[in-house]
């Protein structure tokens, strides 16, 4: 573990090498990137295993001195960090591999790997930072990486705008984080997590200050993790290449907000108000984004809203004091959401770049690997029993129930229903029925470099949940809270009916999606083979169909449009208002700059006069 600091450096080396000679290497650049991330992955796995048996390791040195304050830098391998190292390096390695096929033929192929290297370095650096300042530095660096990658197709106007929007909107959150960090520093005289927790536990920081700083830091997480109201950059960020969406905007960077809250969890635990805020924002985002996802027609945007919603889930878990639940879902989500994005990329690749699900359909027969893998992802995210998402979602709901937020709990349940609904809608529209696009002959399965990562993720999406189940033991949870009782228990004991309800809601969502979008093409035998109850209901499909078209779909569409309205007019409007005020002031200032030298002198004199008059009126030195 002493050498864990090397892990981020391999991608950095790849970044530097490719920056210098990437142009000569052309598509061979991929091997450099893949090799670097592979080494990181191997190291991460070793570190993860070591951490199972050894205590937390940390190292630091003096980095910056301001006055009499010493700020340190270093690294720390605790349970959370070790787990994050593994997740990030794994997904990064798989995405590096996948991109070799996906980006094939792009004239800026090596540049893409340069950016990927930079991002992976920053993200790995982020998750082993032992103090807030270092976290903040890498936090900004991942933002830069994300900015560059979203804008990768810069000749597209939307990509350019999306890159800018992502950068600026997350910056707004970062300001909150920065202020919170500085305030915390001022209260505890340290940026280091351990010192901060010590000060907080010893009662050196007042209750209001804890709440204030915790919420400010959470604002940073809101920006990064696309929580309401700073979420709208994330769907737009889908303008970036799809592997990037999988890596940055699904599995790793957007989860950094969740990671931050988890890393500072003892601070948040000290403030009930902050926790409640997180829970409310999380739960609201979960249902808000899920409902918008219901009506999207772009395959990647559906997944993007789904990401926002799932991140809301994680925040909700943390806000309900469910530390284990939040981190657990972060992990399973990384697997199945990366899988879904990569599969979506494979679909887009197959149909020649089209992303509109209305123009897809019937791809199941053509994409023999992608189809089942996408289905695995869909089942996992929907929380269908026995897959990873089922266990982590169950853990969240149990934690929420224990945390005592019945209304938020209900919202989360409904969001689970929506999730299953839009995911299966997506699945059915893409893979079943007739092909609605042009040029069907061209549709082909992706090369091995793309399917291999999907298979790995597919396996993990199925089995990843078994490290923490109510049935076989909560190994992950127990390990995560080991040696730190404050983080809560390793497993939330919820009543059994929660599991049943969750299952019912997710199956319900899937079922309605099937009724509406899938029933035309899926053979009856396929369904009846699954279960008799479904079959009986199916007999009455006519009424149910009509009924749900009118009620559930209409209501959810209504909610969806309402939220879209809030999104477009209120949130964006507010942002527009602020920017236009600043722009207006700028215009005014530029107008004053007339080029007349008399004006310049006059302004200086006026300035002096105003200061002197104020001085005179306030009695000068007497104040």
């Amino acid at each position, binding site marked *: 573990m002493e050498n864990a600091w090397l892990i981020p450096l391999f991608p950095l080396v790849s970044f530097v090498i490719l920056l210098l000679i990437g142009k000569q290497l052309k598509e061979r650049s991929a091997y450099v990137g893949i090799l670097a991330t592979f080494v990181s992955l191997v190291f991460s796995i070793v570190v993860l295993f070591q951490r199972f048996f050894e205590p937390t390791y940390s190292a630091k040195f003096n980095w*910056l*001195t*301001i006055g009499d304050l010493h700020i340190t830098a270093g690294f720390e391998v605790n349970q959370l960090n070790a787990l994050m190292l593994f997740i990030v390096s794994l997904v990064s390695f798989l995405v590096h591999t996948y991109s070799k096929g996906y980006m094939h033929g792009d004239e800026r192929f090596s540049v893409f790997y340069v950016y990927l290297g930079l991002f992976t370095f920053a993200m790995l650096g982020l998750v082993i930072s032992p103090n807030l300042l270092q976290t903040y530095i890498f936090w900004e*660096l991942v933002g*830069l990486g994300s900015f560059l990658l979203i804008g990768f197709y810069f000749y597209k106007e939307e990509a350019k705008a999306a890159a800018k929007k992502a950068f600026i909107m997350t*910056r707004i959150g970062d300001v909150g984080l920065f202020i919170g960090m500085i305030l915390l520093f001022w209260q505890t005289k340290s940026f280091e997590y351990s010192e901060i927790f010590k000060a907080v536990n010893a009662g050196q920081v007042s209750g209001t200050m804890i709440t204030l700083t915790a919420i400010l830091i959470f604002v940073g997480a809101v920006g990064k993790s696309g929580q309401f109201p700073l979420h709208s950059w994330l769907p737009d960020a889908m303008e970036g290449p799809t592997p990037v969406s999988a890596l940055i905007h699904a599995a790793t960077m957007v989860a950094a907000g969740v990671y931050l809250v988890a890393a500072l969890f003892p601070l948040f635990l000290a403030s009930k108000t902050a926790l409640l805020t997180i829970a409310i924002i999380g739960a609201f985002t979960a249902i808000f984004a899920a409902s918008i996802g219901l009506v999207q027609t772009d395959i990647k945007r559906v997944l993007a809203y789904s990401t926002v919603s799932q991140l809301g889930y994680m925040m909700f878990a943390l806000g309900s004091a469910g530390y284990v639940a939040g981190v657990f879902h972060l992990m399973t989500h990384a697997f199945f959401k990366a899988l879904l994005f990569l599969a979506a990329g494979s679909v887009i690749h197959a149909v020649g770049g089209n992303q509109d699900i209305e123009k897809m359909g019937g791809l199941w027969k053509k994409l023999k690997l992608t189809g089942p893998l996408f289905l695995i992802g869909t089942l996992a995210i929907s929380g269908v029993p026995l897959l990873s998402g089922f266990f982590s979602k169950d853990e969240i709901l149990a934690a929420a129930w224990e945390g005592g937020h019945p209304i938020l709990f209900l919202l989360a349940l409904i969001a689970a229903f929506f999730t299953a609904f839009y995911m299966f809608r997506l699945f059915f529209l893409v893979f079943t029925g007739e092909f609605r696009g042009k040029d069907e002959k061209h549709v082909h399965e992706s090369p091995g470099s793309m399917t291999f990562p999907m298979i790995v993720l597919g396996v993990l999406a199925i089995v990843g949940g078994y490290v923490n189940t109510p049935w076989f033991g909560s190994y992950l949870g127990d390990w995560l809270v080991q040696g730190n009782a404050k983080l809560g228990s390793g497993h939330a004991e919820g009543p059994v009916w929660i599991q049943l309800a969750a299952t019912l809601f997710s199956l319900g969502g899937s079922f309605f999606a099937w009724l509406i979008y899938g029933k035309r093409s899926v053979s009856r035998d396929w369904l009846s083979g699954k279960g008799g109850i479904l079959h009986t209901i199916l007999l009455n499909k006519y009424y149910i169909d009509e009924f749900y078209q009118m009620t559930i779909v209409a209501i959810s569409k209504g909610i969806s449009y309402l939220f879209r309205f809030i999104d477009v007019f209120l949130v964006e409007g507010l942002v527009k208002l602020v920017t236009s005020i600043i722009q207006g002031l700028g215009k005014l200032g530029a107008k004053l700059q007339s080029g007349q030298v008399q004006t*310049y002198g006059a302004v200086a004199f006026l300035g002096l006069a105003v200061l002197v008059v104020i001085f005179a009126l306030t009695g000068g030195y007497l104040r």
Partner: protein
Amino acid sequence: MSAENFLSINWSIMTPEFIILGVAALLIVFDLFMPKTLGRTILGWIGIAAIFAALMSVASMAGGPAQSILSNTFRIDGFSIAFNMLLLLGAALVMFIAVSYEAKDGLEKYQGEFYYLFLIAVSGGMLMTSSGDLVTLYIGLELLSVTSYIMAGMRKDHVQSNESAMKYVINGGISTAIILFGMSYAYGLTGTTNLLDIAQKLSTLSDANQAYLLGLAFLMLLVGLSFKLAAAPFHMWAPDVYQGAPTPVTAFLGVVSKTAGFVIVIRILLTVFGAAVTNGPGSAPIIINMQNYLAVIAGATMMIGNVVALRQTDIKRMFAYSSIAHAGYLLVALTTLSANMFYSIWFYLLAYLFMNLGAFAIIQVVTEKAGSTKITEFAGLYRRSPVLAVSMGILLISLAGFPGTAGFIGKLNIFIGAFYGTSHYLLAAIMIATTVVSYFYYFGVMTQMFFRPVADKSKLDIPFGIVIVLLVAVAGSILFGVAPNIAFNFMQNNLDIIGQFFK
């Protein structure tokens, strides 16, 4: 003064100034006797050598005690050594930019003149740094200013250049008048021009009415000197002058001249008003009472600089506003008057020197090739010259204060300083907010460079001088961002600024 007396003076502490002035005189002679057909760039290289020699000489003084000669009018202390090093380092880089500048529009006839005027301007700045007397301060200031006026207008066939020189000289005149008026109060109340004597007399001032007059003097000096800093309310000349002046001169005004401006502000305001009492001996110094005025100026400067920069379409004008904004951040450090103030300002100026001079070097290459200073000339720079674009990218994120760069550490120093002792929440908030605004225009240039199609596909040649500037600037911006303690340890171990400043 007898010859013996004259020789007994410890002239050696003026070695750096002598080197610069001596070489300037040499260049005048060379320029006079060199055949017209010979290129004058060689004179520039001699100038660079002189600046480096002076830099070495200054650096060798580090660690020594405070010394003064000529009845305390000229002094060497930790402060003067630290800031002289900044001035000389900046001057060296500007000179590298200047030798790579293709003289045209009338400048070609005066190219030699340009180099020695430049050296004289630098010596003016150095004199300001090391002076302990109002008179020498003023002479240094004028030496710097008058030469700058000339340099701004050296492209004699270029209308904008002429206009800029004219505006500069008029505004400079106004500011000088205000400064002198302010100084006259200090002299009138104490009967001496020596800074330490003034401080000593004013520290026992018992008449509150006289303190009131000194308050007025403070405001006049502050407003007058804000001209050199390009801070509000005396900032309006900057965009016009920056735009019209030849790029090396713009770089000089933006960095070296501004550094000198901060030097004189700190010397006068801190020595005189840090000692002068408000209400009888033992009461609070005037400068503490005037903190709010400093804060207003700092806040206004940050807001004006950053907000108006958004509207600019000309890269040099944009950088003029950006330099106004940076003056605002530096004034925040001054306002807080924290123990860490000297170091914060020094470090920020160092970081600012790297990022701004590097950026100006690139601006010169790009705009000279294009023949226009529009920001759109940067479109697709990444395609034309990846090296320039990536360097500019690093410098821009440093200017924006992005973590991992020297600019970030500089801002962090100032920001944390704002919470030292009395907390300046409002000022800190304005600093953060305007920094966010600054992202828009810095990243506007980034978008041009990386995300826009190329208008002009021709390749750019990077002259040798520019290569050096870029190497130093980019390395400095990253090095001091990643390992900022290098600078701190240097200061801590070699220079005792606070201990020597008031003695």
